[in-house]
């Protein structure tokens, strides 16, 4: 199933960039943004959020069959 990856950037008036990644799981996340971070400058704060520890996406939909005797 296709998955949406998104990055939100807040570029403050002094040029500091705050980056939040959504929908990318585990280490793939850091690999994704390393390119941007290297081009911009120096990372001085990084905090993992919940998905960082999740290895695969959880399937939120389940098919349940109901049998009546």
């Amino acid at each position, binding site marked *: 199933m*296709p*998955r*949406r*990856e*998104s*990055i*939100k*950037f*807040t*570029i*403050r*008036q*002094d*040029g*500091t*960039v*705050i*980056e*939040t*990644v*959504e*929908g*990318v*799981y585990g280490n793939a*996340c*850091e690999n*994704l*943004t390393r*390119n*941007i*971070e290297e*081009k*911009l*400058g*120096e*990372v*001085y*704060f*990084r*905090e*993992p*959020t*919940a*998905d*960082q520890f999740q290895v695969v996406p959880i399937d939120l939909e389940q098919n349940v069959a109901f049998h009546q005797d």
Partner: protein
Amino acid sequence: MSHFTKIKTSIKNKPELVEALVLLGYDVKEDQQLTINNPNHAEDHADWYADVSIKNDIGFKLNKNTGEYELVAELDSWDLDVPIKRFVEKVTQQYARMTVHNTIKEMGFEVEEEWEMTDNSIELTVSRWT
């Protein structure tokens, strides 16, 4: 969400620096010899050169030791409508914006939203389907 990162921007690439200055409405020239207005400074700055300039006495020069572009300007004759510190901030902010735009395009992302906020920050949301 997967991670939250703060990055201090430094100006390291000339094309994005030029784009940032153009976005701010300046007339950009490359590889210019700058003019010394104050005769007392003439000897100290006999070779006053800028990789990217917006006036004949204001520009940016690459510091080869740090790999970063630094402002070169004569403080006595500074006549832009913003103070020096604010000018550098504005250029750095637009530089960061262009760097993000150019990099995310290479990575297959598209811009979903871009807003200039009341606190002068820029909010940019990009996404792609995998």
